């Protein structure tokens, strides 16, 4: 294990190496103790027996419960994104309009739906769908709830993306006589799309996680709830939840890595090279995107190797 240099600390000398080693060992012991404690409790409750874990080798478990649940989750997520993107784009563009009568209502709509939890939106959408169409459709409720919320979030992404296009583009377009609509559709939006793409993909992670909300009160049989039914059938709640957690981690991590890959590839293309960076911390709420477009590329303390 080579010792790296970092701005925060020197390459460790002998004393520091010893200190690091001691701390490592102590931390490692503490971690191991925690893991051992958890495993012993699990073992005493018979959670580590193969009978609890073997249902995952049964194809029927997967085909009846888990895979349909996973499919339901992905369906809801993809349909929501497909519907939310155009709505978000329209709202975002409206928020950039010069006309106050367009800007203000769009702003109110975006702020309103971003301030409300997604579960509340799903509950409302469920009742609305039932009242209007007489059919209770958890899928529609989940999709509408997600669209209402993420449409507003994506509106901010689109707004940030359009603002990230260098001013020169706008000036040149106006100089050759394009009107506002042409400016938006021919010049700004196409360029904004490349800057927004990583942010949209990482928002997809949030959407996939939020589909699980549909399983609580609205009754949508997504992966978590399907796993619950499976666990009830096979009597193995803890192993099922661990496996489901792993599935979610795999899906979301691959989405995140593809988002980072997209960001890297699109950043190195020619042009202004500015990306809409969605604060990882603000993934659930894009207030950061509203505040400013972070110009990425300045090496910070943690990134200097």
């Amino acid at each position: 294990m080579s010792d790296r240099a970092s701005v925060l600390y020197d390459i460790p000398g002998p004393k520091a190496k010893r200190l690091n080693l001691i701390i490592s060992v102590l931390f490692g012991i503490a971690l191991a103790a925690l893991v051992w404690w958890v495993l012993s409790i699990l073992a005493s409750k018979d959670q580590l027996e193969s009978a609890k874990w073997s249902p995952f080798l049964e194809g029927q478990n997967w085909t009846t419960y888990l895979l349909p649940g996973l499919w339901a989750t992905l369906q809801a997520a993809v349909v929501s994104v497909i519907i939310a993107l155009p709505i978000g784009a329209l709202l975002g563009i409206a928020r950039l309009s010069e006309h106050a009568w367009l800007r203000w209502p769009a702003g109110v709509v975006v702020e309103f739906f971003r301030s409300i939890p997604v579960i509340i939106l799903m509950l409302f959408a469920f009742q609305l769908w039932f009242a209007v169409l007489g059919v209770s459709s958890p899928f529609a409720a989940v999709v509408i709830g997600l669209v209402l919320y993420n449409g507003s979030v994506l509106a901010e992404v689109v707004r940030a993306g359009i603002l990230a296009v260098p001013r020169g583009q706008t000036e040149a377009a106006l100089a050759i006589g394009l009107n506002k609509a042409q400016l938006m559709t021919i010049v700004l939006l196409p360029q904004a799309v490349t800057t927004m793409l990583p942010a949209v993909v990482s928002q997809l992670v949030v959407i996939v996680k939020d589909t699980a909300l549909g399983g609580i009160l609205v009754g949508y049989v997504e992966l978590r709830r399907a796993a619950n039914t499976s666990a009830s059938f096979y009597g193995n709640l803890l192993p099922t939840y661990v496996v489901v957690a792993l599935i979610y981690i795999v899906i979301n991590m691959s989405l995140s890595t593809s988002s980072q890959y997209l960001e890297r590839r699109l950043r190195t293309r020619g042009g202004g090279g500015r990306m809409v960076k969605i604060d990882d911390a603000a993934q659930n709420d894009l207030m950061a995107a509203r505040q400013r477009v972070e110009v990425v590329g300045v090496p910070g303390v943690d990134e200097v190797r």
Partner: protein
Amino acid sequence: MDFSFLSDPRYDVIGAFWLTVQLTFWSAIGSFILGVLLAAMRVSPVPLMRRFGGGFVNVMRNIPLTLIIIMMSQVIANQLGVRLATREAGVNPQAFLDNQNFRLAVVGFILYTSTFVCEAIRSGINTVPAGQAEAARAIGLTFTQVLGIVVLPQAIRAVIAPLGSVLIALTKNTTVASAIGVAEAAVLMNTLIENEADKFTAVFLVIAAGFIILTLPTGLLFGALAERNAVKR
């Protein structure tokens, strides 16, 4: 629109939102502390800590909060028998249940939200110019001193706005506690819709208003704080 259910003594709107506020408050404090610890671990010279911090953050961020909260209640409390409150014999266990569920929910929120606080602070650390840390090292400060005296204060000041949005997200995420029976706003809305199904729009507007009252001022406050405390460079 008929808002008569507001005066119905069966529905405690203020109480439900008070519970939301309490959940947010305790989770926020816990997440901040744990988040700072995680961030420190992720930039520390100890490789094991770095790896643990990175692993913990990546695992917790990618699991839906719903799953975390439900696992806290069903697996950790029910199956593994972990008790976070005391049950007194012979007394109505409702207080025990409420406390237990509340604390389970708070722990779940802390585990989840601390990862976002950690990422926020880490990106804040990245905004501190390398020169600051180099100068601190040049005058002989140790790692913890560099972090504690020079870097973190500037980092946190730089990320007040993202931390504000994490707080707002946490406020909205407390509705997930409805999965384990904590009587906060989402459970209230569910009950109201069951009993007063024809007034569901009015119910929605009331609950929405409650959350807007909680989140909008927080957003404005943190925006103002961020402006005031921004490090001028």
